[in-house]
């Protein structure tokens, strides 16, 4: 079973700020340039379980958190995107299980996930107005 410290060692080149809350929780901040490398490194070390992707509207920014089960510790890999044009590359080539979570992220928070194999809506109905993202603060109720 992997230890929290081993997870930190794996990703340390790709993250700025790492916090080991306890043996089972690691939180790390990365950025748009490095998150895919961090995820690829984890995958190369037989860490295959992406629990989910969370998006949070922070006002000026949107944070995207990849929750990854590292066989023991749960890694929360976080990056911040400017709210004006939030976009990042799909990670479905690294974690195929991300396919629905990225669709969720696109429609609920308006994050543009590039290279997604199937960028349709997931939960929202077909006639939902474009540009109205329900989990953003300014969403029309």
């Amino acid at each position, binding site marked *: 079973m992997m230890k929290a410290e081993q997870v930190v060692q794996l990703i340390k080149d790709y993250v700025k700020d790492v916090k080991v809350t306890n043996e089972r929780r690691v939180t790390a901040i990365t950025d748009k340039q490095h998150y895919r490398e961090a995820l690829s490194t984890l995958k190369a070390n037989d860490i295959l379980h992406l*629990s989910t992707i969370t998006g*949070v509207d922070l006002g000026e920014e949107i944070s995207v958190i990849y929750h990854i089960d590292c066989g023991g510790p749960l890694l929360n890999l976080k990056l911040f995107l400017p709210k004006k044009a939030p976009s990042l590359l799909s990670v479905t080539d690294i974690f195929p299980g991300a396919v629905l979570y990225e669709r969720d992220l696109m429609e609920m928070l308006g994050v543009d996930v590039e290279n997604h194999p199937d960028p349709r809506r*997931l939960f929202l109905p077909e006639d939902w107005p474009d540009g109205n993202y329900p989990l953003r603060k300014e969403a029309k109720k």
Partner: protein
Amino acid sequence: MSFVVPIGPQHPALEEPEHFRIEVKGEEIVDVDIRLGYVHRGIEEALSKRTYMHGLFLAQRVCGICPVSHSLAFLRAVEEIAGIGCPDRARYIRTIGAELERIHSHLLFAGIAAHEIGFTTLFMLFWRDRELVLNLREMLWGNRIHSSETTIGGVRWDIKSNQVPKVLRNLALLEKEVKHYIDVVGSDRTILARCADIGVLTKQMSRELCAVGPTARASGVNWDIRRDDPYAAYSEVPFKVITERDGDVLAKILVRLREVLESIRIIRHALDAMPGGPIRAEFKGHVQEGEATERVEANRGELLYYIFSKGGEKPERVRIRTPTYANMPTVKPMLVGGTIAEVPIVLASIDPCFACCDRVTVVDKCTGKTQVMTKAELRGLNK
């Protein structure tokens, strides 16, 4: 020539109305597409508009089968941010509540699986025995499913010593029956013909698609949040993580039935080892700034709650990832290559909780003609 068979949104095989577009060539399924969201209720957003205490009750109502799992995941995250400890006795009571829930949920699944293959007698027997557990929940906490026995900082009701004999008696009855069912499921010719080598999910596929819970364990993935990220009293209670190798429908049924036996062991041990003392720590309603990602092993697998607090009485953001959501991508590899007649049992095998009914429309792509099939007709294809 391929046909499209849309299943849903109003269809049996899912807890919520969801839409499966199944493309077939002759009998063989060649492609599957899933459309979700027909009962999207906006609960994540609604939780950020409610106080933690109020939100707890809403979180429990995300699912009509596993309210204890949802409340435990929510509580775990709130208690982590707020720094509230849970008294030891309450941790054991939470464990007992969660395991009673797992038993009734797995028996519900087993009954439905029997129903889907037309084995109605077995369906009745499973659901008859499920009552043993539901009655216990009612006796202990006043309600069969939505008993809301958990609360932030502990539990709301104690287990009294005069209730324990009844719990043990019902569990003993149930244990005997479940052992018999495991023999039946593993040897009955009808069940084997309908479930063995059907809807196979390989271990590799299961891991790549991030499957969770009994669906993953039936494919040989040895992973259980109760053991690997323990909560409540699981770190102090001995139990085995059940796995099967084959990844077919049969393995998915057997994993759940064998888990019922483990759950019975857990409850017995917890009742025996339960310490005395208070059952509830004080929670003043205010939670400081912070964030927490917490998981529990719900009946269908890893259930994840992420809570982000800016300080105050309401969370800023709550993210919920339910197990069925995680298991959705596995449906396609399980169905492709199979036949239409297998659809009900394969969809049922990830245990997505059944709700409503009963229509399949078969569309002929070339002529545009549609034919609506009832579930009875669909079952008729099995015979």
